[in-house]
């Protein structure tokens, strides 16, 4: 059962979450789903940081990192939601395909 040790499971689940989040970020057509993609990937990052802190003994430093990155991610989410609402007021829909007019 070497593959199913605690560390391996944490890393595998973290990678799967990052793949899910990045896939959502790239392929979606809805403006607010972009924010959901960022959030899901940030959960995986939090998991990685805490696991690193758990393993090398500096759990308090890892908690400081996690707290700071949670605050940053909230500010990014608020700004992105602001842009989404602004675009909705201008174009009347939340579809990204309405904006794809630049070429080259």
């Amino acid at each position: 059962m070497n593959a199913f040790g605690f560390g391996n499971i944490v890393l595998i689940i973290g990678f799967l979450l990052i793949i899910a989040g990045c896939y959502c970020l790239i392929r979606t057509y809805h403006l607010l789903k972009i924010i959901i993609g960022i959030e899901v990937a940030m959960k995986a990052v939090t998991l990685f940081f805490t696991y690193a802190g758990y393993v090398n003994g500096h759990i308090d430093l890892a908690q400081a990192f996690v707290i700071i990155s949670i605050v940053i991610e909230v500010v990014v989410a608020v700004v992105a939601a602001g842009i989404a609402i602004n675009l909705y007021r201008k174009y009347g829909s939340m579809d990204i395909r309405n904006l794809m007019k630049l070429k080259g």
Partner: protein
Amino acid sequence: MTAIIYTCLGLMLVFGVMAVMLHSMTKSAIALAAASAALGVVLYEMGAVWSALLEISVCSGLVTVIFISAISLSNMDKKELEKVYEDKKRMSLLPVILIISGVVLVIAATTAGVQLPQASAVKDAGDLREILWNNRQADIWGLIIIMITGAAAVSVLFRESDWK
């Protein structure tokens, strides 16, 4: 302890994938909140008590409120939503990708033989509060500046006077 951690890790993965794949935005936001709650339990069991608290209160609470308010400010009819966005079709490739990459990762974990370190004893004598306020002051300055940036950004983006 291990049963709780493994269950919550699995729940977090399931809720995360549900948040990506559901096409109704409200249900997506609620699935995200549930994933945050599961992550909070995992963090607590690993010993990170304060970050579990912040994760549950901020990501489960505040971000969900932001989502629900953004969704309600841009309401669209549910059937029209489904017809326009086709998100269900585009996202349906995701479970296949996840299962394939899961199998690849498990094979890599068994054959590569990467030796992961075990949990070691806590090395710092200090406490989170001391570390955050004494050692990481540059990050605290960064946080103050980010909040100022966020305030300036919101005041620009939500101004009503120029909407036509």
